[in-house]
């Protein structure tokens, strides 16, 4: 098998394992869909004054796309790797000739496949049921998604090393996730200039949400690139990758 076929081979088995694992299929795939339906229905017909009176769902659908990427990349990698490390699957893998890059590429592509499915489903539901307009620009949306996926995959790998054992992993992973979701305006944009919006500005999710929203924003006059947010997201992607590479371990820390 050459390296490309080997990567395809690896992705196939990551996909099988992902969809059969009730934890990943529920927490990282069904969860965003559930939030999508609940909040989009509750706020149907609402308008957002802070964003020039656009419909709530024209903002909320892109926000849920960002939420989905974070879920499929950060949550699934952080919990999945913590479990695999604790159970010895990672160590076992280290003893096979599978190249390290192929293993990680397999994990990342798996997360990207899930993210794309979530994104397409989210936009589809938005367009079909909540009168959401399709994105006005594609290139900035793609760039935002790539940077977001990179940031949250790297953060997932880094955070997986913080869990002292597999039982603690979901709590350790989900706590910062939901804290971030609530302060970053996923369910409702935080008022500009507020303490919450100031605090959220230090973390990547609000910038990711803004960068995904920009190409969906019917009132935006530019080309859909949220330059400032994309820049901060890019810095997060680099920083998180460096931390992930430094912190990654094949075996649990003991003692």
């Amino acid at each position, binding site marked *: 098998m050459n390296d490309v076929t080997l990567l395809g081979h690896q992705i196939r088995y990551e996909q099988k*394992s992902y969809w059969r*694992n009730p934890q990943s299929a529920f927490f990282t795939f069904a969860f965003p869909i559930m939030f999508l339906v609940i909040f989009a229905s509750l706020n149907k017909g609402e308008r957002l004054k802070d964003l020039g009176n656009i419909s709530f769902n024209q903002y909320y659908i892109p926000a849920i796309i960002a939420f989905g990427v974070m879920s499929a990349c950060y949550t699934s990698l952080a919990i999945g790797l913590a479990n695999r490390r604790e*159970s*010895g699957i990672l160590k*076992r893998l280290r*003893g096979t000739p599978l190249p390290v890059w192929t293993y990680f590429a397999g994990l990342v592509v798996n997360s990207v496949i899930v993210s794309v499915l979530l994104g397409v489903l989210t936009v589809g539901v938005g367009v079909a049921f909540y009168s959401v307009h399709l994105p006005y620009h594609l290139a900035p949306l793609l760039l935002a998604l790539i940077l977001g996926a990179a940031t949250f995959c790297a953060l997932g790998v880094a955070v997986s090393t913080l869990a002292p054992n597999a039982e603690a992993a979901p709590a350790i992973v989900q706590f910062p996730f939901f804290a971030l979701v609530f302060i970053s305006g996923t369910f409702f944009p935080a008022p500009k200039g507020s303490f919450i919006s100031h605090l959220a500005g230090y973390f990547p999710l609000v910038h990711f949400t803004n960068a995904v929203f920009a190409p969906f924003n019917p009132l935006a006059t530019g080309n859909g690139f949220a330059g400032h947010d994309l820049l901060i997201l890019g810095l997060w992607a680099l920083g998180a990758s460096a931390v992930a590479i430094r912190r990654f371990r094949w075996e649990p820390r003991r003692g």
Partner: protein
Amino acid sequence: MPAIVVRNLRKSYGDVEAVRGIDFEVATGAVFALLGPNGAGKTTTLEIMEGFRKRTSGEVQVLGTDPAAGTRALRERVGIVLQDTAVDPFLTVREALTRNAGYYPRPRSVAEVIRLVGLQEKAGTRVQKLSGGQQRRLDVALGIIGNPELVFLDEPTTGFDPSARRSAWELVRGLIGGGTTIVLTTHYMDEAQELADQVAVISGGKIVAAGTPESLGGRDTAAARIRFSLPNGVAPTELQLPVEAIGPDLVLRTDDEVRALHTLTGWSLDHGVPLLGLVVERPSLEDVYLELTGGAAPTETGVAA
């Protein structure tokens, strides 16, 4: 060329020296057992050979390369079965083996390996639904799917019931039939005796004895013990032989049991005194092992390592 060469290997964890300068060689096609109690340094030594740990000093060659380099080429030739079973729980037996077979340039056939470990009826079952013993067999199957020249087995039967151990031994013997070099660790003497051509006993980070299971610790040439007892009222001193009282028995240690028995039985016939429960004993592998690893009971014979 030997499959493995280890020279003056040392490994420290902080101030603790887990492996204190060990040497051994494993011939190609041989079955080599590292025997020792928990904490003796066997897993550390094994994991250095497997490439999981870096050594502090010394030389290690596995199939002619340094395992610390961790090259893909070396991993393609080596199969590893770790102490703990760890396979993706959501794949089936056949999927797990097919996936791993794809990692190697010349893997064995998946169906053949499944048959070899006796999991034909579980081939379509998810790993999470297998029993502990079946998972262990899958683990061994994953260790050999790449058609390795060398297989490491870390305590392959720890926690097995006696019949599961027997079938695991059969499995290992099946591998040996293919000319594969096998390095295993164990703390069971009988396992080393059943499987290994060469045994090294490791204790406190050092090899305290090495050889074939038959000759280990000088067992084949060690002093024999002649054990018997005398009827009530006969004092041992009447024998005029250097016997030692151990419980109700008398023990005579000798390097020449034929001559000693002749003297003893001659005395018995001359004096009309029976030698009750007369037996000649040699130290068992277990005696040698306990002696070497410091767990010796006071009645054990002193055997030179």
